[in-house]
């Protein structure tokens, strides 16, 4: 019951987001600022995590393939596909939900508690639009970029780990990387990135937007933003997998 109520409130917030902006230039400026915050601000952590994810995938598979008849170039192939289909979009966005999502919920929630949202409302600003739309738009553009970068770095990580540990020869790995290349998987990756980006920003905005009380509630909202985003992301991941394959 409360879940349904919350979902309705969430949809209402999203609906209010699409009213005509008061001034495009202000929304645009805010969107650029958010792109910078979300994108540039998350590059290093996304990169670092991608590097190790790729490395682990590579080494793990290499061990499993040892002594089997499966050719070594399969390691590159597996690293590529598991990264593109699943690891880069999902893990990156789970991490982003933690980093960006909690940040957004705390920022908007703080504005709510300090009556700054009321102040915007009084001025005649469409608060749902001005506070939520730029963040969602920025995420939809920037998160796919981050995911592409993440996939690339992941493969580099896989290559380095595989080759440096001597489990796979450089040429084998590179052969695997280009083996049976399926552009459709990249499309899937980008669909996921867009959907996950939308989820993690809109859910976090929602959680912040309706905060009441004090700093304890703010902390709770920020945590819930991350938890809800994560659950919805893995759920959406499953749904997308069902629809697109």
């Amino acid at each position: 019951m409360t879940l349904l109520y919350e979902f309705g409130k969430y949809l209402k917030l999203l609906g209010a987001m699409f009213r005509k902006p008061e001034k495009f230039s202000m929304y645009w400026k805010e969107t650029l600022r958010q792109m910078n915050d979300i994108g540039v601000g998350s590059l290093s952590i996304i990169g670092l995590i991608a590097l190790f994810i790729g490395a682990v995938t590579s080494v793990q598979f290499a061990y499993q393939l040892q002594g089997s008849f499966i050719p070594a170039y399969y390691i590159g192939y597996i690293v590529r596909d598991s990264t593109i289909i699943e690891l880069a979009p999902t893990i990156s966005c789970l991490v982003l939900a933690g980093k960006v999502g909690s940040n957004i919920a705390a920022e908007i929630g703080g504005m709510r508690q300090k009556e700054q949202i009321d102040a915007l409302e009084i001025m005649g600003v469409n608060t749902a639009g001005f506070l939520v739309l730029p963040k969602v738009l920025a995420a939809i553009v920037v998160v796919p970029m981050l995911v592409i970068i993440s996939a690339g770095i992941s493969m580099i990580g896989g290559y380095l780990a595989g080759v440096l540990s001597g489990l796979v020869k450089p040429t084998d790995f590179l052969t695997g990387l280009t083996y049976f290349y399926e552009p459709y998987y990249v499309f899937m990756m980008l669909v996921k990135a867009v959907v996950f980006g939308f989820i993690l920003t809109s859910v976090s905005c929602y959680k912040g937007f309706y905060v009441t009380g004090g700093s304890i509630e703010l902390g709770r909202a920020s945590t819930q933003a991350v938890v809800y985003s994560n659950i919805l992301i893995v759920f959406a991941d499953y749904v997308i997998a069902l629809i697109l394959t």
Partner: protein
Amino acid sequence: MIRVEEIKKSFGEQEVLKGISVTFEQGKTNLIIGRSGAGKTVMLKILVGLLNPTAGAVYYDDLNFSTLSVKEKKKIRMQVGMLFQGSALFDSMTVEENIRFPLDMFTNDTKLEKENRVNHCLERVELEGSNKKYPGEISGGMQKRVGIARSIVMNPKYLFCDEPNSGLDPKTSILIDELIRKITIDNNITTVINTHDMNSVMEIGDNIALLYHGELAWVGNKDEVLDSPSETLQDFIFASPFLQRLRKAYNQ
């Protein structure tokens, strides 16, 4: 002019406002007074439409606010300025950006025009030169003044102030009161102020409404306060032993 009719507001079981009818006049500083928790902030938020009353209506120059369309409400909002109890400045923006924000959002003024307007408002609140500071870098009183500057930057027809001088020293309080009164008279606007500051009541109380346990206990102006027979008002005004002694002396 703003008129409210039979405003009621409940939060669950708790009835905070029990049918308030009062008129706030143009060109005057209208005060809502009452003890902490009396419902002043709730009243003000209903006046500006941040809260919906459980019953009753708010009229802006004879327009019933709650029946207006989103577009018409927005039109009125554009003529409303509000100073919040905690100033509500945007933390991520400088003083100048805070004040300029409504101009950026709603006008097509040139950069120079906006700059001039911002500086004019800063002058009015005597904060020239603080343009580049962030809210976190200035004192509470200065934040209030920036809040006032921001609320008058669009030349509002209606100005609302929620405890403009709470937490300020008496001198600064008086400055802020005088400032609000001057703006009200100069621009002939309708100003509504929440306060429990006695100085404000006696200095700028053109039109005073006392809230007590959710009801309107007294209406009048500053010249009528001392001679009013209303027990509730006298209790409220002369709350401190010091003031009670003064009153005794006054009566003798």
